[in-house]
């Protein structure tokens, strides 16, 4: 009750509009979850995982299977961390239409990766080892890019959409350029980009809090 009197002070139209805009932005940000867990976890997974693949292609000091054994568990971990962050964050306190949408979106990830697993298992024995690695890398990043773009469209978060579009562009360039270039672009471009975006968003969220 301490600040009730002060809270009742009427605002000027300018102050009112600013308050509405700031509160809308703060709410959207908080509903989006902790950016360090949502974005940076993916960034670190790609930075390390595709970095390991690049080391394999460029220097041959580790095997491809070792690199993929770094990449995929880290991606699964990132997926688990980001969905945990969504559930534990402000969005986890919301029920109704948006939580149904979130559940469907979560299933889309699982089904996407299941399709990738089936296709990759079927096709990779038919390909030379480096091309097989490229196939796994391009397929996994296609799912990420498309679902990030879809997520941005569903929740009207332009940054999420553009991050997905950025990954898609790098993925296309990498797929055409070959395994080494793809691994480098995904590690430094997508991984580094997501890691930085997560930290910057977290910093902005802290300032707004």
């Amino acid at each position, binding site marked *: 009750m301490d600040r*009730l009197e002060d809270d009742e002070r009427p*605002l000027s139209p300018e102050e009112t509009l600013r308050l509405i805009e700031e509160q809308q932005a703060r*709410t959207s940000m908080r509903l989006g979850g902790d950016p360090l867990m949502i974005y940076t976890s993916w960034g670190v997974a790609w930075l390390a995982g595709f970095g390991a693949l690049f080391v394999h292609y460029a220097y041959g000091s580790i095997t491809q299977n070792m690199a993929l054994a770094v990449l995929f568990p880290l991606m699964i971990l990132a997926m688990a961390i980001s969905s945990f962050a969504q559930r534990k964050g402000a969005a986890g306190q919301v*029920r*109704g239409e948006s939580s149904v949408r979130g559940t469907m979106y979560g299933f889309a990830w699982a089904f996407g990766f299941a399709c990738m697993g089936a296709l990759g298992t079927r096709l990779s024995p038919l390909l030379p080892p480096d091309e097989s690695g490229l196939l796994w890398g391009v397929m996994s990043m296609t799912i990420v890019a498309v679902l990030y773009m879809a997520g941005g469209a569903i929740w009207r978060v332009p940054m999420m959409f553009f991050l997905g579009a950025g990954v898609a562009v790098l993925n296309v360039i990498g797929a055409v350029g070959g395994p080494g270039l793809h691994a480098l672009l995904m590690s430094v471009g997508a991984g580094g980009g997501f890691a930085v975006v997560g930290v910057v968003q977290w910093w902005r969220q802290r300032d707004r809090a």
Partner: protein
Amino acid sequence: MTAPRDLDPVIHAQARLRVMTTLNALGEENQITFPGLKDLLGMTAGNLSVHLTKLEEAGYVEIVKTHRVRTPVTYVALTRQGRRAFEDYTAAIRELLDLT
């Protein structure tokens, strides 16, 4: 300074305006738990309760008490009337600022 005549006096107070803005930002057909709303707004439970009661009396919010597993949970949401009132309010503010 007094509130301009056209502006809804129930909404035209900082705390209630923030509550309405936050509930509106959740989108239609969504409800938020009382603790979730309290955290989003950074208000005390007592303060938020007082403002929610005023908004409920005006017919702008609905408060649903239910159980999740065995724990009692209180959900808060904008009513259709509340959403319309908020839209009218923001339109009136923009008109005052000659933004529309």
